[in-house]
């Protein structure tokens, strides 16, 4: 595991720029990709956005002042690119997931009861019905286990705002679940 700061200094000094960038990419690409994928669901879309994110990182890294952690800055770039994509594509709209279209093979467990399958579908529907910012905050908090301070920096809000986003998301999902 290489230190992000050392790699960034190496990149900014122009000494083995590509090698430093490759190591940064290796260390962070999966987390960034998965966060984007949770937002857009389609692999092809997530791949496009992730590419844009890393190309942006390449072109802007020289100006990165290390006032925040690299991963915070990286997720912020990913957040902006994802929001731009969703606004352009209007894919934030609810996708109609029915039991027929649900890909049971892709689910981790094949021995789920019908009840848990229903909950599975409800979870996906609920997540997709969340406003983009709340969805992003929810994913970072639950799946990435990020602290609120970092989430606030990524989404450009206050710590209180980030907390509120998470709890609003939870409340909204509960309401959706009750409706079903």
């Amino acid at each position: 595991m290489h230190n992000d700061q050392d790699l960034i200094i190496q990149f900014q000094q122009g000494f083995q720029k590509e090698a430093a960038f490759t190591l940064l990419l290796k260390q962070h690409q999966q987390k960034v990709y998965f966060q984007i994928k949770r937002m857009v669901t389609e692999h092809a879309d997530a791949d496009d956005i992730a590419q844009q994110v890393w190309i942006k990182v390449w072109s802007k890294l020289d100006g990165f002042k290390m006032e925040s952690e690299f991963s915070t800055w990286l997720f912020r770039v990913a957040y902006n690119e994802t929001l731009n994509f969703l606004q352009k594509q209007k894919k934030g709209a609810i996708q109609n997931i029915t039991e027929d279209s649900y890909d049971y093979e892709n689910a981790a467990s094949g021995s789920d009861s019908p009840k848990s399958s229903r909950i599975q579908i409800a979870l996906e529907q609920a997540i997709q019905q969340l406003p983009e910012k709340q969805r992003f905050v929810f994913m970072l908090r639950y799946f990435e286990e990020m602290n609120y301070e970092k989430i606030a920096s990524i989404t450009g809000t206050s710590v209180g705002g980030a907390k509120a986003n998470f709890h609003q998301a939870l409340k909204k999902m509960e309401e959706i679940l009750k409706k079903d």
Partner: protein
Amino acid sequence: MDNNKENIELINDKALVENLFSKQVLNNYEAKEKKVPTNYFEHFEAQILSKVVKERKAKTIRFSIPKWSQIAIAASFFAMIASTYLWIESKNTKTAIASNISIQDIATSEIDAYVNENEAMAEIDWQTEISKESSNLENLNTHLIKDTNNSQ
């Protein structure tokens, strides 16, 4: 202490989600989202690197062309400004010299010389004109005398 508080807060937040949906359902969801094509990340890395290298080359080309043209444009612009400035400056100097000299500043001898020179020129002109006219008159007289003789 703060870290501990943060951890407790995270555990509580996660518990709220897991009460709503089961942990298994959430794990299934995550497993589904994390499914990627085989060797996707290895290919992704290579793809990004080739793109940034291409961009880097393109940037170098883009950068070198405007740099030269910028220098050329700057040089010609400077030359144009400089020549315009010199032309205006020389014109102003001549006008300034002419307007700054008053008649009192010129020596009397210089004025006399100028007047004499011009008078001489004028005299020459007049003499030429008079001699021309007189020769014409002489010619006219000669013709008239000849015509009169012929008619007689």
